[in-house]
């Protein structure tokens, strides 16, 4: 019982934490605490097999799936704590407390008979005995769970897998398309200029400078542009002037041409 009295408060606290933490990831981690503690309790309750399964399957696989999806959804995402449905939080608390009260009071009044214990049932080992039961009395239900697992697999496939409808574009086709696009719309043929290359800063948030000294918008990722973390061309103007001053008249274009040639090689 020592394990129980140590773990029970931890579990309740962790479970309550799930209700209040703002970040989903934290909730998942708190759930992991509950689950692992639960595994220990299983061990204390003469269920060694479930102890293992709880850790391997529940905590190991299922919870990891949760975390995986959380990563996809955005691990930073945190819930707002403002309740939007009127009366929901109050009612939820009241109804929840009432329900808990009914269950706890109802059940704790129960004076259990003598605990039979599993010594006899586990004779010969918990796992073999479980297997015996699973593959005799519950064999049909056991086999039927396969339907569940297949359903789950199909479900995931249907909802997540996107079939390729068009054949993958080969290199030749890609090149032909680019040239055609250049002819039709004048879209630049080659790859976009890399950022920062011809500027003083060799960083992705710094636009490249064109031969005439202006900054190339196309050289920075649109995402960065949207976030507004690009060091904008006007801000660079001073730097450019500074460089030009340092190099003196007419020298400004020289290195650029050289490097351009180097780049072409």
């Amino acid at each position, binding site marked *: 019982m020592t394990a129980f009295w140590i773990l029970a408060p931890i579990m309740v606290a962790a479970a309550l934490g799930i209700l209040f933490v703002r970040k989903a990831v934290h909730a998942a981690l708190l759930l992991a605490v509950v689950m692992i503690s639960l595994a220990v309790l299983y061990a204390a309750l003469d269920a060694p097999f479930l102890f293992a399964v709880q850790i391997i399957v529940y905590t190991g696989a299922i919870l990891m799936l949760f975390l995986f999806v959380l990563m996809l959804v955005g691990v930073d995402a945190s819930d707002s704590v403002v309740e939007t449905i009127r009366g929901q939080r109050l009612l939820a608390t009241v109804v929840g407390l009432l329900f808990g009260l009914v269950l706890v009071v109802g059940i704790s009044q129960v004076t259990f008979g003598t605990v039979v214990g599993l010594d006899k049932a586990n004779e010969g080992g918990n796992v073999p005995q479980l297997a015996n039961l699973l593959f005799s009395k519950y*064999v*049909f239900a056991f086999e039927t769970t396969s339907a569940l697992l297949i359903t789950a697999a199909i479900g995931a496939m249907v909802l997540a897998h*996107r079939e390729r409808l068009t054949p993958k574009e080969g290199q030749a086709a890609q090149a032909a398309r680019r040239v055609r696009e250049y002819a039709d719309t004048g879209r630049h043929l080659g790859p976009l200029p890399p950022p920062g290359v011809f500027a003083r800063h060799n960083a992705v948030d710094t636009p490249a400078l064109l031969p005439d000294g202006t900054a190339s918008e196309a050289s920075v990722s649109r995402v960065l542009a949207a976030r507004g973390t690009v060091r904008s061309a006007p801000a660079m103007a001073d730097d450019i002037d500074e460089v030009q001053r340092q190099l003196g008249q007419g020298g400004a274009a020289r290195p650029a041409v050289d490097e351009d040639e180097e780049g072409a090689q």
Partner: protein
Amino acid sequence: MIEFSKPVIGYAEVWPMLLVFGVACAGVLVEAFAPRRVRYATQVLLALVGLAAAFVGTVMIGLDLNETAGGAAKGGITAEGAIVVDGPAIFLWGLILLIAVGGLLLFAERELEGGVSAFAGQAAALPGTEAEREASTRGLDHTEVFPLMMFAVGGMMLFPASNDLLTMFVALEVLSLPLYLLSGLARRRRLLSQEAALKYFLLGAFSSGFFIYGIALVYGYAGTMEFGGINEAISNNTGNRTLLLAGMGLISVGLLFKVGAAPFQAWTPDVYQGAPTAVTGFMAAATKVAAFGALMRLYYVAFGNERWSWQPMLWVIAILTMLVGALLAIAQSDIKRMLAYSSVAHTGFLLTGVLGAQSASELSSGEITSLQAVLFYLVTYGFMTLGAFAIVSMVRDAGGETNHLSRWAGLGKESPIVAGIFAFFLLSMAGIPLTAGFTGKWAVFAVAMSAGAWPVVVVAVLTSALAAFFYVRVIVLMYFADPVGAGPSVTLPSVLTAVTIALGVAATLLLGIVPGPVLDLAAHAGEFIR
């Protein structure tokens, strides 16, 4: 060392169910290996043949059942005590399989959408994107829906036939998971469809949480999961009754959620509206059949000795359900939501039948038993619901189905036959004599009345009068109102939907005029095996 004896599964009794599961698995293999262009035909054919064979098998098994329990029941317990194959189970299997055939035909319908099914071309493609348009112009559709549906059918068959709480729990999940998925696969209005799936899933998972906790408590009381054992424990009055009662209540929550009884009905209208209409029709009809079968088995077999404690609870639930269903249906402006609430009201009527349970000694000979009345009602309900939703799928405009009631105005002028058939289904749901609905209502009310539940019957009669009101309102709308704008139009379906509707009409008409054979069949099914 532990002795392990090879489990005996009565394949001879359960093979129709195994066949359905097998067909589902075969369907998965077809998805994996068959080229795309043959998949649709293969899947439909496979499923149809599978269901038909399973139905034939069910009939054959039904004919072969041995009498037990002094002739009161037929059949036996098999698969190491996990499954009961008795009269009611066979009856329900047959009904579920027939409804499944109708549902399958609706699933397979491709005429209404112009050559593609009602399911999303690519569920993974985001709504409104290029990829989705691409998928729909190429005429793709998800043929995975057929195996999913077959899994659901298998689960539905197992649900009312399970003989212990664990098998019942697994069956509940097997039937639910595919339905969660299917709800989210509509071709049109995908946001609504996905939302329906999410709501159905979250609430379903929530309610199955209650179900399993209830199982735990009942197991704590009885020390066994088997229905017979629980019944025995109750009659020996071992253990503490608080555990039993709390467990019974929580298990009921799970089951009442599935049948859509108030106050657990909230998901019904949303899911019915959002899901593809073919799925709605199938799910509304078949799930209810399966869940009521399970509900009755649980109440009659496992908690049969505890009848006087669950009956009052069911009184309350039944009255609440009927009132909520009928009242809210009045306020609906969407035909699918209206039918959803009407199905809630029907749940109430069915519960009225369930709570009319009496022990054999209380019944005078030849009287309709509650089980029989409910089985009969399920037949009538199943077919008219399936038919009504099939009609709903036909009334369309350029944007797909037109479910807003105002768009149904003047349907009688546009297509007298379709409007007439729909009116017929509605009249049957309202319980007008000479339709199946009337006989069904009569049967369940009569059993409740003879069990002394007259307050429930009074409410039931009241609400059926109220319900008639909104059914007739739609009829008036179809025939007497002027169409709004261009008016509704009816897209002619292929023979598949037509067959389903014909099945519904025939059943509804026949069960109204000559209900005898089916009532006899239900009587012939006998009692549950304890």
